């Protein structure tokens, strides 16, 4: 594993390995000394062309728990905002001696470019690129799902996948890197995925995706779902006529109190509600749903650190010269 760019080309074995390692990393988070020396002396650069405080601090915590040095490079107010190219930034990081680059970029494929060019040799971790992928988010979601699935089935988590699990991903699929990364990874791990969205927020060409597509959230929930993943929807989308207004959106595709009550009424006591954050309370998810015992929002955040530790550990340990990629 040289880079982590997408979940589309992540093998089942590699995915399970990351989740298994994350399990051990999570245990570190419960200790008094929350630190491992594995990446001592290595430098991880968080290269954020887009603001994302939560993702950045999650990667930062992960790198620091592994004893790596962390440099945060934010594009705002830096040379990048003055027109410096991705290439020049990458070459600068190479010259500084970055051992790994965690990149968040508004352009789909920017991490793939860094990985494919000779601008920088370091392993590249995609921390979200445009509307393409956000693989560590999908891994932390899969980790959360696997914990839940093992609990429900009374099995152990290590080495297992999500076979038989039914997951609904709801909301702005078109613009969501989280949805794409989750779809590929959950399928690789054997889960069944239903995408629920207004037709305007499904990408043209998604009809061939390995999932069920639904326009009806209530029908999907009534069909029996083990986890509902709500996606952030931006209110501005209504100005581009993706939906008439936020009121209609949340009535048809939001996880509101009525749907929460319906889950209870249908006896779906084990169904969890997930959200990658940050949440728009009252738009795609009601406060009652976000704060209910079904909600895994905070568990996802804490799992994020463990999963990112596992990824950084795998990319930065082992022989870097070995030509293999994800």
């Amino acid at each position, binding site marked *: 594993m040289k880079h982590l760019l997408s979940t589309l080309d992540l093998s089942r074995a590699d995915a399970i390995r990351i989740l298994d*390692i994350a399990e051990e990393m999570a245990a570190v988070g419960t*200790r008094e000394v929350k*630190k491992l020396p*594995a990446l001592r002396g290595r430098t991880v650069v968080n290269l954020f062309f887009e603001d994302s405080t939560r993702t950045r601090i999650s990667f930062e915590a992960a790198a620091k728990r592994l004893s790596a040095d962390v440099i945060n490079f934010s594009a705002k107010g830096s040379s990048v905002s003055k027109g410096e190219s991705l290439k020049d930034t990458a070459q600068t990081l190479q010259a500084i001696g970055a051992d790994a680059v965690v990149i968040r970029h508004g352009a789909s494929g920017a991490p793939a470019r860094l990985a494919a060019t000779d601008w920088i040799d370091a392993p590249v971790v995609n921390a979200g690129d445009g509307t393409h992928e956000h693989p560590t988010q999908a891994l932390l979601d899969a980790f959360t799902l696997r914990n839940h699935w093992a609990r429900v089935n009374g099995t152990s988590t290590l080495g297992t996948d999500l076979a038989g699990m039914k997951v609904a991903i709801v909301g702005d699929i078109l613009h969501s890197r989280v949805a794409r990364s989750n779809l590929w990874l959950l399928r690789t791990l054997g889960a069944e995925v239903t995408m629920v969205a207004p037709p305007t927020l499904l990408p043209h060409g998604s009809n061939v995706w390995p999932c069920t597509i639904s326009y009806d959230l209530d029908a999907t929930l009534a069909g029996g779902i083990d986890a509902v993943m709500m996606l952030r929807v931006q209110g501005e989308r209504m100005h581009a006529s993706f939906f008439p207004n936020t009121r209609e959106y949340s009535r048809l595709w939001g996880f509101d109190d009525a749907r929460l009550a319906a889950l209870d009424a249908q006896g779906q006591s084990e169904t969890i509600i997930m959200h990658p954050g940050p949440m728009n309370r009252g738009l795609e998810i009601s406060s009652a749903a976000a704060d209910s015992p079904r909600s895994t929002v905070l568990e996802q955040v804490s799992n994020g650190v463990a999963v990112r530790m596992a990824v950084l550990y795998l990319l930065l*340990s082992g022989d870097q010269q*070995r030509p293999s990629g994800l």
Partner: protein
Amino acid sequence: MSNDANAARNLAPKTARTVLSSEDIDRVLTRIAHEIIEANKGTKDLVLLGIPSRGFPLAQRLAQRIAATEPGLDAAAIVGQLDVTMYRDDLRHSTARTPLPTRLPAGGIDDKVVVLVDDVLYSGRTIRAALDAIADLGRPRIVRLAVLVDRGHRELPIRADHVGKNLPTATTEKVRVHVAEVDGVDNNEVIIEDAA
């Protein structure tokens, strides 16, 4: 190490010779168990931490023998597993290793007498890593080391307190420890292979 051992066993090298049989291992473990009790003047505060993969089943066997000497002592309560992967000094150079769980006994390790248990003592680097790992987990009163085989060639100032068998080897040779818990039923032996 398990992958290497499995692969090597499948290849069945011609020059492999057994240096400890299953019975030898039983006898040696019994002796080490007694030595541990004697050094500790009893079983009070004893914790056995096995280093995966084969140190852990050896620690379990030692714990069973120690518990047998004292009615009411539960073997499971004094044994744990200590993974040292993240503390190794060769993480950059070998292929990426998958860490295994670290599990401490319920009583923890603070102020305990911790006996580290491993199958083979060689360069000493694994034990160095284990000492660092222990320091992050608590503060034992004493840390001792028990190994099934000491094959020499130390690269660090580390020695074992309890040794099953001192085994003079050449660096070109490989020492393989097979224990049933890891390597399958009735597969208990220590063999030396000529790596050539």
